[in-house]
């Protein structure tokens, strides 16, 4: 309505015809309407926020197997395979007065349970498992010893650690029931289905770092040496010592480097022998007990 006045003024002064003026007004109105429509969000529609950015990692090694540790499947047993070991504690009365943490009253009680202790212990020994003693006496006795005493909190007599703090435990009596305990005597706990890439890389670096200096200090010189490759497979024991070295498999032989072939393979074997023993993580022994190195020089 307010618009009509300007049109009237504009019309005669600029020489517009009435239709033209009308069309101009209509066009201006339509533009204003369009701008308003676009600027104001139409009601009833929500604006979608852009999706959050995601970090993508490219792994060159994928596996069907999980490499994350699974503490439950092969947990260390809570009972020593051989319960006879800790027996020879000749003085049961001594530890008794010091400890008995679950009991608020140290003095009256300890004397009574202290004596029966030697008796009940020999009993469980035949019961638990007579059979599973293939790995009889490695290290497990040491570790499990601590656990069994804790795993049977109902027997306060077993908690005889001399340095244990006094007072009540903050752990409930049922706490340990939630922990999975294993049955395999040799288990060391925390196994994974497969070795992680990081662990493999660490082993690779360890071996490479030890083998490279003796490989370099055994010079092989001549034409087309860079074409030679010697693949050497070797076997290690748990201590990282070389048990055996297979005959090197050579490739890349040419007429020009034939003379150097025997020294080349000899140097490869020498590098492994000189580098040993390797200090590698014992828990992944199955991974590195057989190893293959491809030697070359550039």
């Amino acid at each position, binding site marked *: 309505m307010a618009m009509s006045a300007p049109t009237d003024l504009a019309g005669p002064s600029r020489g517009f015809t009435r239709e033209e003026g009308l069309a101009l007004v209509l066009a201006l109105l339509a533009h204003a309407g369009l701008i308003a429509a676009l600027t104001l969000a139409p009601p009833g529609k929500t604006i979608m926020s852009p999706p959050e950015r995601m970090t993508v990692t490219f792994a060159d090694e994928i596996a069907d197997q999980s490499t994350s540790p699974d503490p439950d499947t092969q947990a260390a047993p809570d009972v020593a395979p051989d319960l006879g070991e800790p027996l020879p504690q000749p003085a049961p009365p001594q530890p008794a007065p010091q400890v008995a943490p679950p009991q608020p009253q140290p003095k009256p009680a300890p004397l009574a349970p202290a004596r029966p202790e030697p008796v009940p212990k020999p009993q469980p020994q035949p019961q638990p498992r007579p059979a599973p003693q293939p790995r009889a006496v490695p290290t497990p006795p040491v570790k499990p010893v601590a656990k069994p005493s804790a795993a049977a909190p109902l027997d306060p007599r077993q908690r005889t650690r001399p340095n244990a703090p006094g007072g009540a435990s903050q752990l409930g009596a049922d706490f340990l029931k939630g922990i999975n305990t294993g049955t395999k005597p040799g288990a060391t706990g925390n196994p994974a289905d497969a070795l992680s890439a990081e662990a*493999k890389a660490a*082993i*690779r670096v360890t*071996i*490479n770092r030890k*083998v*490279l200096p*003796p*490989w*370099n*200090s*055994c*010079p*092989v*010189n*001549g*034409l087309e*040496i*860079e074409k030679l490759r010697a*693949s050497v*497979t*070797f*076997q290690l024991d748990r201590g990282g010592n070389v*048990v*055996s*070295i*297979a*005959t*090197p498999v050579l490739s890349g032989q040419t*007429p*020009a480097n034939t*003379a*150097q*072939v*025997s*020294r*080349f*393979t*000899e140097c490869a*074997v*020498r*590098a492994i*022998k*000189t580098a040993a023993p390797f200090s590698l993580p014992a828990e992944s022994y199955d*991974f*590195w*007990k*057989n*190893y*293959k*190195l*491809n*030697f*070359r*020089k*550039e």
Partner: protein
Amino acid sequence: MRSPLVAGLCAPLLCAFLALSPAAEAAAQTGQSAPQAPQPQATDAATSPEEDVVGTINNDAAIAIPSFPTNEMLPTPADGGNTEALGRNLARVVYGDLKNNGLFKPVGPDALPPVTFGEVAAPAFPNWRARSAEMLVHGFVKAGPDGRLTVGCYLYDVALGSELARQGYVVKPEDWRRAAHKCADMVYSRLSGESPFFDSKIAYIAETGPKDHRRKQLAIMDSDGANHRFITNGQTTALTPRYSPDYSKLVYLSYMNGTPRIYIYDIESKQQRLVTEGKGPTFAPRWSPDGKFILYSMAIAGNTDIYRVSAGGGESIKLTDSPGIDVGGSYSPDGSRIVFESDRSGSQQVYVMNADGSNQKRVSFFGGRAATPEWSPRGDQIAFTHIAGDLRIAVMNPAGGEMRYLTDSWQDEAPTWSPNGRIVQFFRTAKTTGRTSIWQVDLTGRNERRLNTPVDGSDPAWGPVLP
């Protein structure tokens, strides 16, 4: 594989006790892993992890060479006067050979504590490890009642604490350097895989006098420059000497009667004779590998061709028949083929033909000119002078492929090979003064070094390894 080689080396030099205990040899070949060797491969090779170990090609083998002890200090006519001083000199020669070769980093007797006679067969490995020696050379010297010397030589791997090789030599006192060269040869060939070469001689042309009036004498010396001797007195110019394969003779070019002719000089009798009564000048003589024939070139009316003549004399057989200049034939080590230089295509290029002159084919096609080809004693390479502006020493395979430059100077020419085909020897002319000197370079193009000669030298030629 190694023991026949050692035996072959040893026998002609009056070897008293023979090398290489069987155990050491077995260890050397199998790496001491023989018993359980196939086991890991058979069982777990498929699942075992696999890694690459990438080393560098270097010359970092630290070899300790202490003085060679003696069981009893006795006087000897050999260098040093007594066996104890001689033991030090022996170790010095071994050290010098290995050091100049460039493939190793030896430490000589003057920088090492002496060892006792008993340690030679039972080295104190911890001490040598502490000195960070990788390899250890031990030796001893004994004087016999007849004046002959017995020299023992042992090579040990310090890191492994094992013996790699041993040899012994009985020599006349004046040949004491040869025992040291044989010892260096044993170490060199055991560690490099190459055939030995230190115990060999070099013939060359010694040059003296002003640039426009050079006096050129035939001279010989050991491979390390020792025992230098002039053969001709320099009144007539001598060129391009070549040792016969048995070292008894030298064939060379002499301007004795004004025109260049080929003579055979007998080292023992000091007599020389003309190879052939040709019509024109003859030059560029070469022995066949068996020493029975001599290749030479003869120019008749501007046309030069290659001929073959029996070393004992007789009828010459013409092998090439092109209108250009065919010159400088050199036999392949099996004697079946000859590489030579020809300008039949318009410029000097390298050609190969059968030993009877058939099937002549050009093999050099890499721009510039190619001259003075020389077939490697190993057979897999041909060395030649490549001329494209500067003169440079280059090698290629017998088919003309894989050409590589070994040197980069103003004027390097006339390559010849060490007896094992690993080192190329040539002479270099200085740009300003025109003075010549003899140089050696490893087949890999590294370890270029100048040979010490009392006067300027050119046209070097290596003889075979001494028997």
